[in-house]
C-alpha cells in the first residue's frame, strides 16, 4: 500500500517534471523572439539576458503603420481563410463521393494525389509561374500576383491531405443513416448537409485548421508567384533581412506578429483537434 503511494507520488513528480521541461523547451525560442523584438539595434549585442528590460516600440510600430505591411497581413488572412474554406468544402464533397460510390479507379486516386505533395518544390516554381502567366491570361489579367493564384495553388498541398483526413472519418459514418434519410424523402444535398456534415464536423474543423496554418505559413511559392499586390506576410519576413545590417529586431517583431493570428486561432479550436486528427485509422 505504502509503496503504491510512493510510486504514485513518483509518477506525479515525473509527469509534472516531464511536462514542465517540455513547456520550457517549447517556450524559450518563442520567448527569445519576443525579447529580441523588444530590443533596439544597438542593444542587440548586449550580453544575452532572458529579461525584457525595455521595450523598443518602433520595431512593432514601423511595420504596423506601413501600408505595405498591412496589405501583406490582409493578403495572408484572405488567402489562408479562402484556401482553407475551399479545401474543406472540396474535401467534403470528394470524400463523400469516394465513400458512397463505387468509382472505378477511385481507390487509387488518394495515393496519386498525395504524391503531389512530395516533390521538392524548387523545380516546380518555373512551370507554375509559366502556367500562371501564359495559360491563365485574359487580356492583361493573369493569375500571377493575385490572391486567387495562391488560393488555387495551395490546394495542391492541402487537398490531398484533407481528402486523406476526411476519408477515414467519412467511412466511419454508417451508410444506413443516409439511407434512412432517403426513405424519409430527403434529397442528396439535404442528406449531406443535415446528416453527414454534423457527424464529420470535427474532421472538417481540423481540416480547416491545418489547411489554414499551411496556407498562412507557405513561403517559396508566395515569394515567387506574387509581386506587389498579393504578397503575404512570410515574404515580408524575408524582406526584413536587408542589406544594411540585418534588422533582427524588426524581423523578430514581424515574426511575432505573424504567429499571433494563428495562435489565437489555435487556442480557440484546439480541443477539436484531438477528436478530428485520427485519419480514420482507429475505428471504434
Amino acid at each position, binding site marked *: 500500500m505504502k509503496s503504491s503511494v510512493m510510486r504514485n507520488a513518483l509518477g506525479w513528480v515525473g509527469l509534472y517534471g516531464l511536462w514542465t521541461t517540455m513547456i520550457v523547451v517549447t517556450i524559450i525560442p518563442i520567448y527569445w523572439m519576443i525579447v529580441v523584438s523588444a530590443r533596439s539595434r544597438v542593444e542587440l549585442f548586449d550580453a544575452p539576458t532572458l529579461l525584457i528590460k525595455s521595450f523598443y516600440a518602433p520595431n512593432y510600430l514601423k511595420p504596423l503603420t506601413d501600408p505595405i505591411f498591412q496589405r501583406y497581413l490582409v493578403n495572408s488572412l484572405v488567402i489562408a481563410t479562402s484556401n482553407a474554406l475551399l479545401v474543406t468544402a472540396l474535401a467534403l464533397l470528394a470524400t463523400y463521393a469516394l*465513400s*458512397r460510390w*463505387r*468509382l472505378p479507379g*477511385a*481507390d487509387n486516386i488518394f495515393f496519386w494525389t498525395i504524391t503531389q505533395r512530395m516533390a521538392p518544390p524548387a523545380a516546380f516554381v518555373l512551370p507554375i509561374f509559366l502556367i500562371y502567366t501564359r495559360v491563365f491570361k485574359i487580356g492583361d489579367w493573369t493569375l500571377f500576383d493575385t490572391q486567387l493564384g495562391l488560393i488555387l495553388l495551395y490546394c495542391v498541398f492541402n487537398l490531398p491531405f484533407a481528402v486523406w483526413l476526411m476519408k477515414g472519418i467519412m*467511412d*466511419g459514418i454508417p*451508410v444506413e443513416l443516409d439511407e434512412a434519410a432517403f426513405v424519409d424523402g430527403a434529397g442528396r444535398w439535404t442528406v449531406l448537409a443535415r446528416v453527414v456534415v454534423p457527424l464529420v464536423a470535427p474532421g472538417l474543423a481540423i481540416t480547416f485548421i491545418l489547411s489554414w496554418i499551411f496556407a498562412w505559413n507557405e513561403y517559396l511559392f508566395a515569394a515567387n508567384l506574387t509581386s506587389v499586390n498579393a504578397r503575404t506576410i512570410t515574404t515580408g519576413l524575408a524582406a526584413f533581412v536587408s542589406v544594411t545590417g540585418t534588422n533582427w529586431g524588426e524581423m523578430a517583431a514581424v515574426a511575432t506578429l505573424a504567429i499571433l493570428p494563428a495562435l489565437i486561432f489555435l487556442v480557440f479550436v484546439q480541443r477539436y483537434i484531438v477528436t478530428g486528427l485520427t485519419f480514420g485509422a482507429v*475505428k471504434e
Partner: protein
Amino acid sequence: MAEPGNPKLVAPVQHKTRPRGFLPIETNRFDRIFISVIAWIGISLLWMRFLESWIPLWGATVLCLLLAILIVRKG
C-alpha cells in the same frame, strides 16, 4: 474489432482485385502498372550506374518491358 454485420466494416469501395498473383499483396490493374513503372525506373537507374559501360541502356528497357508484362498479367 466489431461484430460482423456492422455496416462500418463493409468497405464502401470494393477493390477490383483478382485472385492473388505472385506479388505478396492484393493488387488491381493500376497498382500493377504502378509497380511496373517504379521497377522500370529503378532498374534503369541502377543500370546506368553499374552496367551501362558494358551493356547499353536498351538492355534495361527490354528487361523492364518483359518484367512489366509479367507483372501486369500475372502479378
